[in-house]
């Protein structure tokens, strides 16, 4: 297969995977899902490392380092903040507050 068609094929299949995989998400999870997806595109860090690690010019090096910092913030911050959000979701289940009595008149 031609190189270009290979990439096109992988792209098209990934589009379907992306859509189908999240098509059952409940609205409760929209925010963490958005934040998690956001963290995933922090993988541009890999690109930044590949490009910066093979450059010679000082100017390019500086730009590359800036890109690395930005990408790392995206990636690390994104995963940590998503985890923080989800932690609260899961912690809730066992955390039955003692005040949660069901003793209403009805």
């Amino acid at each position, binding site marked *: 297969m031609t190189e270009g068609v290979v990439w096109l094929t992988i792209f098209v299949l990934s589009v379907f995977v*992306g859509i189908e995989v999240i098509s059952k998400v409940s609205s409760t999870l929209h925010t963490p899902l958005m934040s998690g997806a*956001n963290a995933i595109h922090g993988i541009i860090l890999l690109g*930044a490392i*590949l490009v*910066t*690690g093979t450059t010679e010019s000082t100017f390019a090096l500086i730009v590359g380092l800036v890109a690395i910092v930005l990408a*790392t913030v995206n990636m690390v911050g994104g995963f940590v903040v998503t985890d923080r959000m989800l932690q609260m979701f899961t912690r809730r289940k066992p955390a039955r507050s003692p005040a949660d009595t069901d003793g209403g008149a009805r």
Partner: protein
Amino acid sequence: MPTWVQVVYLLCAVGFILALKGLSGPRTARSGNLIGAAAAVVACVLPFVYVDRLEHVPLMLGAVAVGTVGGVLGARRVQMTQMPQMVALFNGVGGGAAALVALLELRHMTDAVGGGELPGFDLAATAFTIFVGSVSFAGSLVTFAKLQELMTSRPVTFPGLPALFALLLVGAIALSVVTVTDAALAWAVVLCVVGLVFGVLLVLPVGGADVPIVISLLNAFTGLTVAAGGYVLGNTVLLVGGTLVGSAGTFLTLLMARAMGRSVANIMFGALKGGSTLGGGVASDRPVRSAGPDDVGIVLAYASRVIIVPGYGLAVAQAQHTLRELVDLLLKRGIKVDYAIHPVAGRMPGHMNVLLAEAQVPYEQLIEMDDINGEFKHTDVVLVVGANDVVNPAAKTTPGAPIYGMPILNADEAHQIVFMKRSMRPGFAGIENELLFDPKTTLLFGDAKDSLAKLLKAVESL
């Protein structure tokens, strides 16, 4: 690239798929996120292992360390109410990184070939990344400023805006063509600047409450730039990961807009057309019945079934902790209290859940719209805290209203309704809420946090 590296990259891409899959179910969400993080870390460590002559390693590790500290601090410190702007910020820096990587890529390409024939598709993908990455960067920063209230959160427009938009878009296309044919770095930098301006102008006309949709859309954009970067670098993880985010993000944006009963185009460009009344409502001067905290306190204290409807105003007032204290107090008095959660209440979809979870509200008290809607008619008091559109009966009764067709909470069926808001101004949709004038309704004016504190005192003293 050795074959084993390619296979590991593929496994990392699979990790991202599993992450998204996990994130879309409540029980698997957290482990999904961790799988994604693990895949990302493995993929980023790989170049240090297999690239023959990787230079500047100490500097790069330093940069990673700086970024990690910044990211972790930001993620740890942020309050749950500020989550949307945090996501916007992270998204923006990601888009910026993608644009910078593409600029460096372009330099590599021109250096390598030295003016000879360059692969057109690669150049086009690079130009795409530079432009869209810049748009995403600038746009995200503006959304951040809006949400953090560093600037007005109202739609900002000026007469020439649509024309300027068109001009910039034509300019960007022209610059991209020049970049592809000439492969000149200077043009690419100009393209970058045009992208930044375009990003700012794209987000300015969007009102504060619509900003989450814009963040989601910019998030998808950034994903696509990363995918384009992956194509240029010939790297599967970047291509698959970026595409996943691009397609899932676009779909998620549509889902969110649908939950709000609006179209994405209307959200992005509604203010430009000028015809939209959204966010532009004025306070009504029709008579209403208002009461003080003490009166409302008595009503609450002697009810047997109470439902709380939290909304956007609760988030603005950051009143969730005070609200929880009030509810705990009511529960102690033997009153049955639940929270009715509307899918698009709050600043982002699902945001109300996060806010209330942070305030340690037990999971069992948060009831989703479809499950609680049948109970309003058996309810003595509905306490509407900083919500408006999500209980507006116009969604059912008034065809043509901006929210017509959006599912709402049936607060109007309760025996008594108490609204806590600061004024008679309408909610986000800018239309009057007939429920405010209902004989069953009482208004408690004031900032939600203040009012709740007073209410708390009033109930305590009974």
